[in-house]
C-alpha cells in the first residue's frame, strides 16, 4: 500500500475528529462543516486504500480480519455521514469519528504475514458480506446514539448540566436518529442474509448450513426487531429503548468477534 495514501486517510479522519470536537465544545459552525468535509475526504481516501488492498490480494478487502475491520470503519463513516446529512445534526460526529479512526488504524496494524490469495467468491458473495458489515456499522451508530441519549438523560434527571450538555442533540432527535440507524441495519441485514442464503444455495444446493453464525445473526436480527417493535409503544420510548439498543450491541460485538474468530466455520471475518 502506498504509505502516503494511508497517512492521508489517517490525517483526514484525525482532522475530522478534532474538528468535530471543536464543533461540539466550541459550538463553531465552520468547524462542524470542515469536520464533515474532512470525513468525506477520509471516506474517499479510505475507499482508495480498500481498492488498493483488493488489487494487492486479488480479492475483496475483507478476506481477513484486518480488511474486514477496514471495511467496517469505512461503512461506519459512510452511514454516519448519511445520517448527519439526513438529520442535519453534527454534534454526534465527535463520538463516531474515534471509532472510525480506531477501526482504520487497527485494520492496518502490521499482521506479520502477507495476506493469502483467497478463492474467488463472486459478486453475490461480496454483496452479502458488504451488506452484513454495513448492518454492523449501522448498529454501531445506534449504539453510540443510544449511549449519548442515556448520558444526556442522566444529566437531565440529575439536574447537573455540564456545558457540553447544551450542544448535544435533543433526546427525541437522538432517539429518531438511533431508530433510523437500526432501520438501515435491519434492512441491510435482511438483504445480506437473503443474498447469503442464495449464494450458499448456488454453491451447495441447500439453504441451511449448521453454522453458529447463522443462529447468532438471527438472534441479532431478533433483538433489533424487538427494539423497533417495542419503540412503537410510548411506554418503551426513551431511556428504556436506548438501554435496549446499547444492550443489543453486545450481540453484534459477540457475532463480530467471538463467533467469527472461534465458533464459525464459514464466517471468519464478517
Amino acid at each position, binding site marked *: 500500500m502506498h504509505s502516503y495514501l494511508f497517512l492521508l486517510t489517517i490525517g483526514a479522519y484525525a482532522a475530522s475528529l478534532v474538528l468535530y470536537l471543536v464543533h461540539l465544545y466550541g459550538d463553531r459552525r465552520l468547524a462542524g462543516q470542515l469536520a464533515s468535509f474532512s470525513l468525506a475526504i477520509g471516506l474517499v481516501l479510505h475507499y482508495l486504500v480498500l481498492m488498493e488492498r483488493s488489487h494487492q490480494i486479488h480479492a475483496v478487502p475483507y478476506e481477513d480480519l484486518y480488511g474486514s475491520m477496514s471495511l467496517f470503519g469505512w461503512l461506519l463513516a459512510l452511514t454516519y455521514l448519511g445520517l448527519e446529512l439526513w438529520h442535519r445534526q453534527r454534534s454526534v460526529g465527535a463520538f463516531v469519528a474515534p471509532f472510525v479512526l480506531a477501526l482504520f488504524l487497527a485494520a492496518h496494524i502490521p499482521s506479520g504475514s502477507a495476506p493469502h490469495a483467497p478463492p474467488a467468491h463472486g459478486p453475490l458473495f461480496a454483496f452479502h458480506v458488504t451488506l452484513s458489515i454495513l448492518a454492523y456499522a449501522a448498529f454501531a451508530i445506534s449504539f453510540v446514539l443510544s449511549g449519548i441519549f442515556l448520558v444526556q438523560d442522566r444529566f*437531565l434527571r440529575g439536574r447537573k448540566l455540564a456545558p457540553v450538555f447544551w450542544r*448535544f442533540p435533543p433526546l427525541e432527535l437522538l432517539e429518531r436518529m438511533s431508530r433510523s440507524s437500526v432501520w438501515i441495519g435491519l434492512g441491510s441485514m435482511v438483504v445480506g442474509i437473503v443474498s447469503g442464503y442464495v449464494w450458499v444455495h448456488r454453491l451447495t444446493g441447500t439453504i441451511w448450513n449448521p453454522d453458529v453464525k447463522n443462529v447468532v445473526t438471527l438472534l441479532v436480527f431478533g433483538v433489533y426487531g424487538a427494539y423497533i417493535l417495542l419503540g412503537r409503544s410510548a*411506554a418503551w420510548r426513551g431511556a428504556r429503548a436506548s438501554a435496549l439498543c446499547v444492550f443489543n450491541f453486545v450481540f453484534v460485538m459477540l457475532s463480530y468477534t467471538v463467533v467469527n474468530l472461534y465458533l464459525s466455520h464459514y464466517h471468519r471475518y464478517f
Partner: protein
Amino acid sequence: MEIVLIGVNHRTASVEVRERVAFNPEQACRAADELRSRGILEETLVLSTCNRSELYGVPPETQTDSASKMEGFLTSFHRMRPEELNGSLYRHHDADAVRHLFRVAAGLDSLLLGEAEILGQVREAYRLGLEHGATGPVLNRMFQGALEVGKRVRAETEIGARPMSVATAGVKLAERIFGKLRGHTALILGAGSMGEQVVEQMRVRGIARVLVANRSRERGEELARRVSGECVSWENLDRALEWPNILISSVGADERVLTRARIEKAMAARGNRALFLIDLGVPRNIEAEAGELYNVYLYNIDDLSEIVEQNKTARASEVPQVEAIVEEHVEKFQSWQASLEVTWLLEMLREKLHGEREAFLKERLAAMTHLSAEDRERFGQITEELLERLVVSHAERIRADRELRRKLQNLEALRDLFQLSREKH
C-alpha cells in the same frame, strides 16, 4: 480625522433620562441632517435602543471641541436643560470611541451580558444611517467593523450561548428533550406571571398549542386570551394532563397540586409519553417524587435559577476572550485609520513645503537678475527634487511601518514638527 462619541446608557442614566434622549428612526434621520447642516459633524450616526442613546460623528477637520457642540445639540434637540444630563453623558474620542462601539456590538456593554439583540440594533442603526446618506467612509468602516466583531464574538465564544433567565432556561430545557417545539403542546397551571413568561418564550419558539387551567375560570380565560391559548376547566385537570408535552405550574397554593400518584396515573393514561414539568410555584406545586417517574423530567424554580447562575458565571468567564477580539478589531481599524492619515498628512506636507519653497525662491531669485527664465525654472526643479529626497521620501517610510503604535507616534511627530494641524492649509 477625528471620531467623537457622546451618549448615555443604562449604567450612567436612569430610565427617565434615557427616555428623554431616545431617538426614533425619524428623529435619528432629522438629527443627522441637522448635525451636518449646522457643520457640527461631517459624518454622523445615531444609535438609540432602550438601554442607550449615542451619537457617533466625524467632525470637520477645522473644528475644535466637537463633543461639547454635540452635547449642546443633543440637549437642544430634546428640549432639555444641559444640567439635566450632568453626570450621565460620556464622551469618547478616536480609538476609545471605536472600542466602545465594538464592545457594544459584542454585548459587553449590555444590561444582560452577551445578549444578541444589540447586534441587530447596531445593524439597523447603521442601515438607517447609510440609506439616509448620513455616514461616510469613516463611520461606514467603523460600523462594518462593529458588525464583524459582533458576529465573530457569537461564533467564536460562549458569551451569547445558554439561557440567562428562568423563562428561557425552561424553554431551552424543553428543547433539549423535545427538539423543536413545533407540534408540541404546553399546559399552564395557574395564572402567575412567571408561567406566562415561559409560555411567551415558547410561543416565540413556535409551540403549537397552549392550554391554560386555573382555579378561577375567569382569570384562566384572560391568560388564555393573552397567550393565544385555550382554557380548560380546573375540574378536568386529570384529563388535561394526558395531552401536554410540557407542563408549567405557577399556582399559589399551600398544598401540592400535582402529587406523584396523580402524575403516575396521568403517565399511564398517556402511554408514558415524555413529560417535562416546570414547577415555578413557591411553595412548590409538584411533589418532588414525581421526578422519579419514568419519562418525567421535573425542574423547580431553584433548579432553573441555578442553571441561570451557572450560565451567568460561564458567560462572564468568556469576557477576556471577547475583549481580545474587540482589541484585535480596534487595532485593525486604527491601522486603516493611520493609513488614511498618512496619505492626508503627506499631501499636506508636500503642499506646505511647496509653498515655502516657492516663497523662498521668489525672495532669493529676485536679486539675481542675470539668471535667465530657463535657469530659474531649473532652480525650481532642483529644489523640488531636493525637498522630495530630504523630507518626503523619509516621511513615506512611515507609511510602510508595520508597527501600529510607532506609526501613530511618528505621525504625531510629523504633524507637530511641520505644524500640520487639523487646520487646512
